């Protein structure tokens, strides 16, 4: 500001000074040329008075008188009207008579005005010259003026130390310059801006250069000659004061700036640096570094801010770590879930792909993410409509037990498609669970319950049927004996007995299925049983079926009823035979296994232990799953009229009653395999089977107490016993029986009693009776299976049990065993 003001003042000063200088020079030039002007005018006046211009004597005299004391004319010429020199001062004979008509000074001089010529090189002196010419009546007077005076004038002007002035003619040719050679060499400087402007009539002040030096040039016209005056002032000189002030000010500003910088540095180290630290810390937070904050003690306010900031950093860090941990945990959960989990966006691009998917498709997470889900997992295409529905309408869709999603019919899947919204984008989550085992378990459970219900039903029916069949069989046999000699009567009674026998077998099979039959457990070697049974088996199987045995040696024993076990083997073998109508292979194998857990979830598990297993497999037609689910149901048969539908039901019942398990594997067209697992016994094996005599014989006689609430059974039994030679005391319930026992306490050899009876049951009655005769033999007879096992398992000494309906010879045999 100050500098500008100074500059402005200085400029004004220069202009004023230049104006004064120009005025002075102009005045001096004017003065310089005013004298020749005057003299020439006087001369003109004189010449006008002279009649004969060629009169040398008069003219020369006049010229000498007028010009004798004047030193600035180089030459004064008088030309006639043709331009020929007629007089010359100082006189030079050579010039007299010369023709000046071609010279501009002659051509440009008019009659009225005084003419000043441009500068030219004088033909007389050979130097830059200017001429003043006036016309008079007989010719022209020309005065040639040496410009040396002007040179002197200009040279003497002091313009600072390095300044100078120049005069040029209107063409820009130098007339006067401190370096005289420029004028002598007629240097034209019209290419200089200031001269070019001057020629156009533009004068003023410009900055220019002359010989590498910078000048302020002020121009002005010298109007008399159309000349131009240029004053050059050395720029540095002119502005030296200004520059020194400017320099001082610049230095001052620089010093101030440096001081400011130092102060700023000091302040910034206390304020800015801490803020920068905070800035760095903020960036660190952005990059996820939370433990990098370092603080230098600053102002207390900033220290507090920093402390809070540090706490905030640690809190954010800890929170982020928690979130990361949670994220990772969630990711692990999702990854480790057995469910197949897929996330898709609204364009079906995969956004989530869990570990189960990677395992299934062998496609890594990175490969799957972003791919079209149906390209990545084509099996899902069947669900495209559901996924679309879920994304577009936000509906959750659950599909249960879908069977054919991966083209594996034996597998069941639950598919759940649920809407996902993340970052305002719609998508869907798809979860696929393999529920095959659950479905199978469900089916087995249903089957198991069904079998249990059927078992109960069978047990109930069996009891009543047994009570009905017992007299039929008993009286049938009595009738047969009675009609000893009547052949027709024999035949009829045999038909009755045969039908009753079939009915009894049927009831027995039902009881086997309902696990209510009476079993005789012995510790058996299953391999031995199989080898013994082998002969019978071979007879039952046609030759086009190859039988092979793989029996593992050293098996543990099993607690089993041998007959029942043989029944199981036979039933399974016969089924296998029927499945291989065109021949095949029947494989029977045994083995031993320690089971920690049940092989099938539906097993009523009794705890871990050793099991002996028996496997019977065929290469037959196999079974459809629907058939396989029903094979253990009573009366379910695929053999039409040929089968009773009770074979596998019995197998099932027998194995259940042995606390064993049975599994079946079958595929349509690939055969069937039954595996039976029986708990291994700790006892040593008993291989031999007791043979019992079934021969008929007479009774030994004596009193027997018979207590039976069913009249037909009681009557039939009493009749048979009487027939055998016993005296029979009959009672219809426990009380009555006990009374009869009290009355004949010592005579009664044995008590034969039903178990379930009104008023007092058989068991209670026996307990009371044995208070008097603890060793009295007792035979329980019952067709009500629920109690059979209980009795059988806990029979006191001298006691036996006979299941209704019974054969009479069996009854007789037991009585004999007990009494004797």
């Amino acid at each position, binding site marked *: 500001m100050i500098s500008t003001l100074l500059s402005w003042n200085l400029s004004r000063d220069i202009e004023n000074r230049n104006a004064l200088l120009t005025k002075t020079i102009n005045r001096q030039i004017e003065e310089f040329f005013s004298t020749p002007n005057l003299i020439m005018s006087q001369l003109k006046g004189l010449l006008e008075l002279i009649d004969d211009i060629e009169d040398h004597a008069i003219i020369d005299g006049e010229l000498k008188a007028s010009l004798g004391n004047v030193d600035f004319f180089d030459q004064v010429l008088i030309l006639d009207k043709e331009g020929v020199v007629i007089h010359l001062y100082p006189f030079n004979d050579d010039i007299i008579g010369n023709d000046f008509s071609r010279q501009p000074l002659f051509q440009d001089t008019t009659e009225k005005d005084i003419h000043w010529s441009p500068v030219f090189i004088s033909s007389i002196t050979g130097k830059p010259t200017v001429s003043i010419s006036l016309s008079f009546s007989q010719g022209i007077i020309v005065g040639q003026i040496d410009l040396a005076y002007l040179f002197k004038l200009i040279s003497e002007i002091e313009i600072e130390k390095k300044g100078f002035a120049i005069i040029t003619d209107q063409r820009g040719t130098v007339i006067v310059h401190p370096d005289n*050679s420029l004028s002598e060499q007629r240097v034209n400087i019209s290419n200089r801006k200031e001269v070019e402007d001057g020629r156009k009539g533009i004068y003023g002040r410009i900055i220019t250069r002359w010989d590498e030096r910078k000048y302020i040039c002020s121009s002005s016209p010298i109007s008399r000659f159309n000349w131009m005056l240029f004053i050059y002032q050395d720029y540095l000189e002119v502005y030296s004061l200004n520059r020194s002030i400017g320099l001082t000010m610049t230095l001052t500003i620089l010093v101030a700036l440096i001081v400011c910088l130092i102060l700023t540095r000091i302040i910034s180290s206390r304020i800015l640096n801490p803020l920068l630290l905070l800035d760095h810390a903020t960036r660190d937070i952005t990059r996820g570094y939370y433990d990098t904050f370092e603080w230098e003690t600053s102002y207390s306010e900033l220290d507090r801010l920093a402390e809070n900031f540090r706490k905030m950093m640690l809190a954010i860090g800890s929170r982020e770590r928690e979130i990361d941990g949670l994220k990772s945990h969630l990711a692990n959960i999702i990854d480790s879930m057995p469910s197949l989990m897929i996330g898709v966006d609204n364009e079906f691009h995969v956004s989530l792909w869990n570990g189960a998917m990677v395992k299934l498709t062998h496609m890594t997470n990175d490969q799957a993410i972003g791919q079209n889900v149906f390209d990545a997992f084509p099996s899902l295409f069947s669900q495209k409509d559901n996924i679309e529905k879920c994304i577009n309408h936000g509906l959750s869709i659950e599909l249960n037990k879908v069977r054919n999603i991966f083209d594996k019919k034996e597998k069941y899947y639950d598919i759940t498609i649920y809407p996902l919204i993340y970052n305002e984008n719609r998508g869907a989550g798809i979860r696929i669970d393999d529920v095959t085992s659950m479905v199978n378990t469900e089916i087995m459970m249903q089957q198991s319950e069904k079998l249990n219900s059927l078992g109960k039903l069978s047990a109930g029916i069996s009891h009543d049927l047994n009570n009905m069949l017992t007299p039929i069989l008993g009286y049938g046999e009595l009738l047969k004996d009675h009609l000893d000699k009547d052949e027709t009567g024999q035949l009829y009674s045999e038909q009755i007995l045969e039908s009753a026998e079939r009915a009894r077998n049927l009831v027995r099979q039902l009881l086997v299925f309902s696990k209510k039959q009476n079993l005789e457990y012995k510790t058996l070697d299953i391999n031995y049983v199989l080898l013994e049974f082998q002969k019978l088996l071979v007879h039952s199987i046609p030759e086009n079926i190859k039988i092979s045995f793989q029996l593992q040696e050293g098996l543990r024993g099993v607690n089993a009823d041998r007959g029942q076990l043989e029944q199981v083997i036979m039933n399974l073998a016969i089924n296998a035979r029927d499945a291989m109508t065109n021949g095949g292979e029947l494989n029977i194998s045994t083995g031993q296994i320690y089971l920690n857990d049940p092989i099938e979830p539906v097993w009523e598990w009794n705890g871990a232990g050793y099991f002996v297993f028996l496997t019977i497999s065929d290469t037959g037609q196999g079974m459809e799953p629907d058939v396989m689910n029903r094979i253990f149901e009573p009366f379910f048969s695929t053999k039409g009229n040929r089968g009773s539908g009770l074979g596998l039901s019995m197998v099932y019942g027998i194995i259940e009653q042995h606390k064993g398990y049975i599994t079946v594997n079958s595929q349509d067209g690939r055969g069937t395999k039954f595996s039976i697992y029986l708990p291994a016994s700790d006892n040593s094996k008993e291989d031999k089977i007791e043979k019992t005599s079934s021969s008929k014989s007479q009774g030994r006689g004596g009193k027997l107490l018979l207590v039976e609430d069913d009249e037909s059974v009681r009557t039939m039994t009493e009749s048979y016993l009487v027939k055998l030679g016993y005296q029979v005391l009959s009672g219809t319930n426990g009380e009555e029986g006990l009374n009869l026992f009290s009355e004949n306490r010592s005579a009664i050899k044995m008590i034969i009693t039903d178990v379930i009876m009104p008023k007092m049951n058989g068991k209670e009655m026996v307990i009371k009776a044995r208070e008097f005769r603890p060793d009295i033999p007792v035979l329980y007879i019952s067709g009500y299976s629920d109690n059979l096992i209980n009795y059988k398992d806990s029979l006191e000494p001298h006691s036996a049990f006979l299941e209704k309906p019974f054969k009479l010879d069996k009854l007789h045999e037991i009585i004999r065993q007990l009494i004797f």
Partner: protein
Amino acid sequence: MKKNLPFVLIFLVIIFSCREKEPLKIGFLGTLTGSFSDIGIASRNAVTLAFEEVNQSGGIGGRPLELVVKDDMGDKDIAAAMVEELLKGGINIILGPTTSSIALSIIPFFSEEDLLFISSTVSTTELDNIDDNHLKFTTVSSRSQKLTNLLIDIEGINQVVFLNDLSNDSFARGYVKTFTPFFEKRGGTVLPTIDYEIDHDTSYYEIALEIYKLKPQGVIFLGDNRNSGLVCQQLAKLGYKGFLSSNAMTNDLILHGGSSVEGLMMISTYDPNNKAKEFLDLQANYRSRFGQDMNFAVKRNYEAARGLIDILRDNPGKTDSEYLKSAFLEKNQFFGVQGDLEMNEYGDVERPMYMFIINNGAIETLEETI
């Protein structure tokens, strides 16, 4: 500081890019004062004009041309001193000199290794067809033939006298020496040359009288045009009616000779009435720049300067005189305002010749060819 570095660099780049490139300095040596200064000044002006034109269009490869002018004042010693001065200033290309006399006086410089002279008005035959570091944009070799034809065939003159300005003695002597055999071969007689020297005491009358006494059929001026004009004035006053001719063709002859030079005939490579566009442009530009009419010296020097400019443009960065001379000789075809010029193997330019006569204070071109 690091943050400020780019700004500092930008600042420095601006500063340096603002700095003007170093000018390419070319010397000029000419007679700018005294006799023959009309030719010298015209030569300098012409070169100045050519340089100003090229500078306005960006210079040579961005470098402006600077003409360093030296006035030899027609003095041999001064001329040699000026050449030395130019050499000291690191200048090795010199346009000039402008007179044959000076050219012959500085011959030793023509064989300097790193120095190249390009002259346009040096017309002494003594320097014709010499392989040196002096390229001439003019030659007089064919002029003697043409002048003989003019004198004998057209004007019927067989006796002439030469007027020799001693300040350019070399040129005149060379001229006469070359001309004489041609003229004499055709039966002409060359009278002994009249020498004169211009100083304060010079009497043009006496010079004219000396000529007059010889009664030559023709007077041929070989000197400065101002002096020639003034001698013509005296001859006219003496009543000489013979044939006049001058070697140089400038307006000074008419200015100072007045009516006495009416009918004077000249042979020149310069046709002031040429209508070629390039010539008219040069004429207009010269007048605009210097407020004067151009002459032959302007034309030749302008063409020589243009030739140099073309060579410098074609060979950027080259200032080695030997190299540039080779480039000149190799190029051999140069721009001329009145038609292209051809340079021979010695660096001399051949030009067509024209015939002129002064009529009513103006130079007229004669249609006749010689």
